[in-house]
């Protein structure tokens, strides 16, 4: 399914993380956390949602307590906005009464949006008085012994560390992290071309060599994240990784040709059966849509469903 297929039904773009946030994310302060410079999340209405690429801002959002004056303002704004929404909702209904049917259907979006915002405002109001968990800001500032570099691409390990902290402190149950793309020059020895240029390697060995350096770095950061997730313990004293499903991959199997087949996907944690390489043949008869994996993930996380988006089945027989 391509983006343009969903033009008439944008709801089809609802991404896995946002769906999960609705299902398992309502008990935490943040139903989901979207990190990284590249957004990869779409709401139920089919809107692409922004993500936060600044570790300092993410830290502030998760762990810095707003002072009483700010909280007072927040309470006041939430209250005021709630009353505004009541008035505009009623006015919209009045307006809609005189409209044609297609227009009424369109206006329904507005009415639904108002109700949804009211619900979220009320939810937010409840959390204002709950103190945020504490965390040491050395994760973004470093100290005399440890340097923390927030420049690209060295902010990658910092983001991963923030993710571990977020999960440990139960600030959220759903996190997405989109690595930055673009055509910036990786500041590593031996890299001479921008990242995007390297991904259009056209099979040239020189470009593949440089691309490998970058991808090695990112994979090393992922490995380091896994180590941290194994060291960190959840509330029951078990490694955090055991109760966390980690999905790592790309939407392209071959960036040089922009092919979205044969995707490289890595699944870890979450109590799945891991340690194996599963090969799937091309799309068509034996191919598997990625959503089949998503169905298995949803079921593992306790969501009662046997389909998601373009799924045709699930992969339980391979990983549970």
């Amino acid at each position, binding site marked *: 399914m391509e983006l343009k297929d969903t033009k*008439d039904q944008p709801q089809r773009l609802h991404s896995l993380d946002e769906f999960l946030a609705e299902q398992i994310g309502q008990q935490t302060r943040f139903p989901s956390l979207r990190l990284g410079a590249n957004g990869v999340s779409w709401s139920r209405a089919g809107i692409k949602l922004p993500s936060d690429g600044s570790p300092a801002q993410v830290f502030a959002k998760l762990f810095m307590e707003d002072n009483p004056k700010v909280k007072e303002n927040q309470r006041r704004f939430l209250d005021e906005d709630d009353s505004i929404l009541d*008035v505009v909702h009623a006015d919209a209904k009045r307006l809609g009464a005189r*409209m044609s049917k*297609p227009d009424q259907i369109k206006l329904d979006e507005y009415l639904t*949006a108002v109700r949804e915002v009211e619900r979220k405002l009320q939810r937010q109001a409840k959390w204002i008085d709950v103190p945020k968990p504490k965390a040491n800001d050395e994760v973004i500032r470093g100290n005399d012994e440890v340097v923390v570099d927030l420049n690209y691409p060295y902010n990658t390990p910092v983001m991963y560390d923030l993710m571990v902290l977020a999960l440990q402190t139960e600030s959220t149950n759903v996190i997405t992290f989109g690595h930055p793309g673009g*055509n910036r020059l990786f500041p590593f020895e031996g890299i001479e071309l*921008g990242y995007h240029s390297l991904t259009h390697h056209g099979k040239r060995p020189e470009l593949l060599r440089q691309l490998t350096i970058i991808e090695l770095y990112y994979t090393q950061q992922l490995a380091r994240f896994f180590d941290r997730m194994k060291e960190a313990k959840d509330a029951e004293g078990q490694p955090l990784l055991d109760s966390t499903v980690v999905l790592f991959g790309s939407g392209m199997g071959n960036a040089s040709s922009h092919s979205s087949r044969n995707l490289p996907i890595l699944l870890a944690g979450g109590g799945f059966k891991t340690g194996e390489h599963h090969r799937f043949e091309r799309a068509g*008869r034996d191919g598997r849509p990625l959503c089949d994996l998503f169905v298995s993930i949803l079921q593992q996380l306790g969501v009662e469903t046997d389909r998601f988006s373009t799924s045709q089945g699930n992969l339980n027989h391979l990983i549970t």
Partner: protein
Amino acid sequence: MIPRLIIITFGWWLATGLQSADLQLFLKNYCVQCHGPDKQKGDRRFDQLTGDFTQLAEAEAFQEILDQLNLGEMPPEGKPRPNPPDLKLIVAQLTESLARARAAATENSGKVVLRRLNREEYRNTIRDLFGLKMVDFDPTTTFPPDDTIAGFDNVGEGLVTSDHLLRNYLYAARQVADKVVRPGPKPEMIRYEKANEAPTNTLEKDARAAAGRMFIKFRQPLGIMQLDKRRGVPAAGEYVIRFSARAIRRKSRYKDEDLRYNSNEPMRLSVSIDSRELGATAHRIIGEYNIPDDRTVEIEHRVWLEKGFTFHVHWANGPHGSFKRIMRKVLPKYNPDALYPARNPPEMYIGSGPELHVYTLGIEGPFYEEWPLAGFDRYFPSPPVSPNAEYLRSSLTRLANAAFRRPVTEQEIKPYLDLAERYLAENKDFWAAARYGMRAILTSPRFLYLNEHAPHSAGHKLDGYELASRLSYFLWSSMPDNELRAAAASGLLKTPEGLRGQVNRMLRDPRASALSKNFVEQWLHLRTLGEMPPDPETNRAYYEDDLENAMREETRRYFAHVLQQNRSIQDFIDSDYTFLNEPLARHYGIPGISHQEFRQVQLKPEHQRGGLLGHGSVLTATSNGVETQPVLRGVWILENLLGTPPSPPPPDIEPIEPDVRGVSTIRELMEKHRNNATCFECHRKIDPLGLAMEPYDFLGRWRDRYAKKIPLNATGNMPDGTAINGPVGIRDYLKKRPAQFTRCLTEKLWVYAMGRRISFTDRDDIDRIVAALPKHGYGLQELIHQIVASEPFHSK
């Protein structure tokens, strides 16, 4: 003779009368065995399909069948397969039926679906409603992007209102209200300028005095103590922060690892703002500047500050860690005298390592050109000393009349006024209540949507106010101004001369630049320009000369020129002029241009330019920053110049991987399209156009051959068989058929003007316009007049 006649008639009958039976037979022969009552491979069953494409589920099933046939995936090997002519026939039938089904499903019979303001329109409307300069103020930065339909983001059907957007509207309304509602006298300006500040530590003071300047100690912030003591700026507004700085000893005798610092990077100074009242979570970095080594740089940074905010500057990439660490761990390595860390005075280090020196630091503001603010004065004229509920109600009514773009009735405005008045009664704060009422009005569906309340009978006419809104959002992407509003109120706008007069006035107004920007960028798909920028190392000029913006500017000015001068729209196909500055001319290889600013330039044939096909913007946007993409260019030409867009490709097509080792040219690779009859059906129309454009590289530069002296072949045939060679061939083809491009541009402008897709009910009007335009020299202004005068533009 006779046998041939019979066969032809027989064939026709088959094609029109027995389609459904053809499909059923095809399914029975090739699909149902594995996808039928006995077996449902892949969970698919096709024996129960009736061929009713109006049913969504059927249409989707057939789309999938079509895709699999096009991909050659189905029927699978080992199973009976149709012969190529039969396959081609079925594919053609399915494609045709599905296209018709799609068109029918989205048919709007000429009615615009309730259309909300898109992001650009919202911003412009706020600008005009309150007379704000939107230079440093953009309340829409966090708004989600708008979806496009038929290529434009102002089509009602595609403009969704989500809870995410609504939250943004609430927040934006608060920002706008805070900025607009500023009662009282003009805030007094403050000005702080410091050249030197007494530090608290006496030793450092001596060291600095000896050095004679301020500097930033590693990562500590440097600010203006008086400002901090006074708890920030006294009033909200635009401030100018000034500083002068220089990087000293960026490379020093200390090794980078010891200082934990990168001496290869230029020193960077960042500016942040803080509010003591709001605490740490209000901290924001508002700018970063590279500081040169060889001279003192003077910087002015303009920023909007709320009351109570202060600012500081920081050495963003200075040595990590504390000064204490430097003195205890680093210094002794380099200075044998530094043996007693506890007693080493700072001046042993100061003057030896890298330092960021700030010589002056100042702030001035708030700057207001006029007072009271235009937007405030407009709705709250001469406020009484003790404004009361009456004044609140009358002011907000004034605002609603403007914001809702039509006179509001008492009944309509009552809930908003009651809300604000209740707030006033509870909080006794008049201006807070005024802001509150303003926020409610700006969140109302009467503001956020273009309301055309006519009941849903066919062809109902818009009233004057609705027509005025449609017109102003078409030409200005913003609300009607007072004169247009007055023309609506008096009925002048409903007369042909009155309407024409207003259109002429509006096209001459600076706000018509919105048309050159919003329509053109979307018509020509230029919004993707910049998404895949070329490699910075091998394309320095692109960045140093700011070519991306220059390319955009060329196209924008070109359109604006055709518009302002009412030139023939055929200029978009070819002309002997364009708009260039020196860097862009150099990029194109056009000699003799030295002006840095944009000017109209005469083109000669040897320049290989002319019309939109020679614009760098188009050529770069139809490439991916690394190589050209002929299929993309071919599709672009079909969609935006010929007006005959191809059907969408089947999904999951394995894209061609260009062989940039130089073994094959892109033409040779694209030959693969011939191998599959159904692929070739569309690609024979797309590929030749794209390949004819190959002389323009991925940044729009002209080339006679490929790298490594591989020859470049730009010949091909148009869909109707006409032979072409290179871009000139395409231009000549289009020049001989001016009606084709005329129709294409008319349809594009139509969608943008109406805010909806084209309907079958529009055919006659569009035909009429296409036939009439040659008599007016194909003038672009005339085309706009014709669209605005058409009946659909005046109808709901």
